[in-house]
């Protein structure tokens, strides 16, 4: 073990740690903040909120996004809502309960102190967003409405119809736009980070390719913040946006940042099943639908009758049967595995028999068409546009799909990676969700990190560099990184093989979904670890990329992202092999209970596995951070 994994968890009782920490870290005085340049990559909830807040504080901020506008980041697609322990419903919620639910929901593989802080800041996020004009759903009296979500027995989820992510992102984007107009943020659109620059062991800048001109340039700052999201697109078919990728965090990993728990991926239970082989992505149907929809399959295998013709006694409401206490609202990992088992048993429905029903008939009868329409109209319309079926009349068909990655760059309590000066926030880091993320918690984490955590912790690092200018971009470390990027681009555009980038991406995705998806085993993972390097070699020899390095070249952009996925995929499989237990979204077939539920092994695996780059993607070095549980007792999760 050679990485220094000091989590910097503050002393004191869990309720006091964050307050104590804010008091003990060093500050930068207001007049000095403008002397520090901070580079932020990504403009989703984490990046946009961090950029706006740091600029409000007075820091000199530069922001980079590969999109044409900061508003396009994939946070925009989050549907269901955002959790906050406001207890407006008077139903027994509290910061402690949100903290407890999140640690339990993560199957006891997250850091208590981070999760408590997240639950604490959840209150401030709702206040901040409301003041920005985010149009959350309201009651007739004008106060905020809540709904319940998977993994919780209280209603603590705030929402804006089925477009909560969009509204929260636009709030953060507008706050960022205000700082751009004020000249305190410099915005670089259509600019993709292709490498991190490290000098004397510290992150000092990034190398960026302008996607319109093709120009490769260096940018230097006192600190670099990666807010670049997750890597579920390693599976090719996922609910992520087409361009979502791992390149920024993977390039940082290659420069020395530890990669934590890369095998922790979330397969979301309610997505529209694939319809044909050309499908480019899968579409999520918000988990909030499980509040009113009942999941079932025909009891009899290969029952080809229309769903309406199948009587109630001939249906298996399997989640309600298996988990009577939580029913259709069990956490995502539990629901996804149950659906997979049912479909593997040949009980699947639909033309390809690759889904289960999510039925609203009972809810419509109970609450009326209008009430259901008020809650879900835009989701029902989206479903109908994609499938040509009307969910008010015919049950939806759903199946699990890769959705979110809990793994990511290792960070300490300050959100700093193992490279001093390099921070990772939001989905790009590993910190708060353990082995499984609860619904409506991703928006919460992205905004907590960006609005409230990073702005309070980054000064502690910067204070050492007062009155030192950022590293000059003609320093050797920048030259070398820039040359590396240009060489790689040249290598791609001279590739004249026979297969397209997307072909390789699809093939990689098939391997990952088969062997490193919802269910994993030692033989399967070993098979993946022999097939992936072989396919990667073929990619290097035989990929076909047209066009030039100068100007807009979308195939070239994808080639770099897919190449990084090849390396990351190996780390995911190695991590899944290392973790000889089942926990949360990570299910090893060898480790299950008699009922087929996940079997955790706390004695040996209550740790974070942090992988260190060695130069060979097949042989990274593992480092461990032991997790301490002082407040929440480790028990077997039960949702029965």
């Amino acid at each position, binding site marked *: 073990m050679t990485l220094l994994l000091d989590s910097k968890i503050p002393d004191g009782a869990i309720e006091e740690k964050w307050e104590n920490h804010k008091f003990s870290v060093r500050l930068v005085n207001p007049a000095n903040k403008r002397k520090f340049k901070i580079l932020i990559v990504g403009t989703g909830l984490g990046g946009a*909120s961090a950029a*706006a*807040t740091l600029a*409000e504080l007075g820091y000199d901020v530069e922001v980079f996004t590969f*999109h*044409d*506008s900061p*508003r*396009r*980041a*994939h946070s*925009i*697609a989050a549907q269901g809502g955002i959790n906050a322990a*406001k207890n407006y419903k008077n139903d027994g919620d509290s910061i402690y309960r949100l903290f407890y639910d999140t640690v339990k929901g993560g199957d006891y593989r997250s850091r208590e102190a981070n999760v408590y802080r997240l639950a604490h800041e959840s209150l401030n996020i709702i*206040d*901040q967003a*409301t*003041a*920005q*004009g985010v*149009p*959350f*759903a*309201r*009651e007739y*009296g*004008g*106060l*905020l409405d809540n709904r319940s979500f998977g993994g919780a027995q209280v209603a603590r989820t705030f929402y804006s*119809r089925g*477009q909560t992510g*969009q509204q929260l992102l636009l709030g953060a984007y*507008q*706050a960022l*736009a*205000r700082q*751009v107009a004020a000249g305190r943020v410099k915005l670089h659109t259509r600019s993709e980070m292709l490498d991190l620059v490290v000098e004397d062991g510290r992150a000092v800048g990034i190398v960026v390719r302008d996607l*319109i001109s093709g120009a490769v340039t260096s940018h230097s700052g006192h600190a670099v913040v990666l807010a670049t999201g997750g890597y579920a697109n390693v599976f090719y078919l996922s609910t992520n*946006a*087409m*361009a979502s990728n791992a390149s920024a965090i993977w390039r940082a990993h290659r420069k020395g940042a530890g990669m934590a728990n890369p095998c922790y991926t979330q397969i979301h239970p309610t997505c529209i099943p694939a*319809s*044909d082989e*050309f*499908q*480019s*992505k899968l*579409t999520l149907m918000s988990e909030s639908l499980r509040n009113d929809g009942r999941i079932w399959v025909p009891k009899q295998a290969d029952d080809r009758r229309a769903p309406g013709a199948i009587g109630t006694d001939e249906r298996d409401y399997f989640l309600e049967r298996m988990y009577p206490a939580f029913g259709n609202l069990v956490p995502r990992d539990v629901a996804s595995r149950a659906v997979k088992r049912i479909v593997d048993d040949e009980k699947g429905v639909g033309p390809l028999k690759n889904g289960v029903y999510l039925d609203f008939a009972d809810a419509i009868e109970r609450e009326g068409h209008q009430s259901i329409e008020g809650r879900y109209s835009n989701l029902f319309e989206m479903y109908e*546009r*994609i499938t*040509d079926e009307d969910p008010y009349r015919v049950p939806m068909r759903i199946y699990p799909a890769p959705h979110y990655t809990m793994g990511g760059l290792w960070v300490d309590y300050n959100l700093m990676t193992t490279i001093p000066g390099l921070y990772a926030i939001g989905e790009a880091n590993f910190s708060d969700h353990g082995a499984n993320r609860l619904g409506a918690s991703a928006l919460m984490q992205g905004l907590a990190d960006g*609005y*409230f955590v990073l702005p309070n912790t980054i000064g502690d690092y910067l204070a050492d560099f007062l009155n030192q200018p950022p590293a000059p971009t003609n320093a050797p470390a920048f030259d070398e990184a820039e040359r590396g990027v240009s060489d790689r681009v040249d290598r791609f555009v001279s590739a004249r093989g026979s297969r*397209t980038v997307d*072909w390789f991406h699809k093939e990689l995705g098939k391997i990952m979904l088969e062997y490193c998806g919802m269910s994993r085993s030692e033989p399967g993972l070993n098979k993946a670890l022999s097939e992936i390097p072989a396919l990667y070699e073929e990619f290097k020899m035989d990929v076909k990329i*047209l066009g030039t390095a100068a*100007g*807009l070249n*979308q*195939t070239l952009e994808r080639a770099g992202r897919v190449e990084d996925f090849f390396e990351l995929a190996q780390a995911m499989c190695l991590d899944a092999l290392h973790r000889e237990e089942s926990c949360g979204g990570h299910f090893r077939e060898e480790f299950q209970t008699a009922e087929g539920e996940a079997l955790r092994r706390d004695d040996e695996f209550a740790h974070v596995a942090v992988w260190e780059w060695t130069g060979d993607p097949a042989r990274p070095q593992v480092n461990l951070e032991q997790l301490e549980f002082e407040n929440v007792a480790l028990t077997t999760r039960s949702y029965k």
Partner: protein
Amino acid sequence: MNVTLQVWRQAGPSDAGGFRTYEVGGISEEMSFLEMLDVLNERLVNQGEEPVAFDHDCREGICGACGVMIDGQAHGPQLGTATCQLHMRKFRDGATITVEPWRAAGFPLVKDLVVDRSAFDRIIEAGGYITVDTGSAPDANLIPVPKQAADTAFDAAACIGCGACVAACPNGAANLFTAAKIGHLNLLPQGQAERWTRTENMVEIMEEYFGSCTNHAECEKACPKSISIDFIAMMNADYLRAKLKNRRLVGQ
């Protein structure tokens, strides 16, 4: 099914550009329009021709990155639907489909079907926000917002910034986009303090980049979120009132 595409190809802003015809056979009607373009691009690469550049990302109708003119209609024939959510079952087998970029002076062409929509960001920067520094917000339930006001604000806030309204407008006007943001913020109690400066500043920046509205209402038809042109009327009313409002008295 089989379709014939006439696609606008243009290597760069200064290139002349022109239509190219492509036969795309053997596609499924379950495919989205963009998946059909993916298939075309895979075939083009295999044949050694550069693929067609187009913007897209989330493919679920919310990021606003995609958008092309399909047979002269922004986002194609289906109402309230972005290009990525349009499926091939909406076309007939054997159809000839014309595919062009957004055409508007406010959106300079970048390449093929890709245009530069950064003028939209300039409009938001001019006042499309509520000034509230992080940390200074009061409790969220301190200010009740009547449900109807909140719901109408949401209807406006649903805008995805795709630019279809501009592309559909014979004048290349961005009034629906601008009015949607002004409507969202001006309807809420939180947005009142900056209501008049916001309206004035955003409208005037809009007019620097885009044409003028003459009430054709093509924008409403093209909008993938079906945002109502009522918001344009509200914006016009607020713009007029902003010119007359004594700012020292807006707190009353």
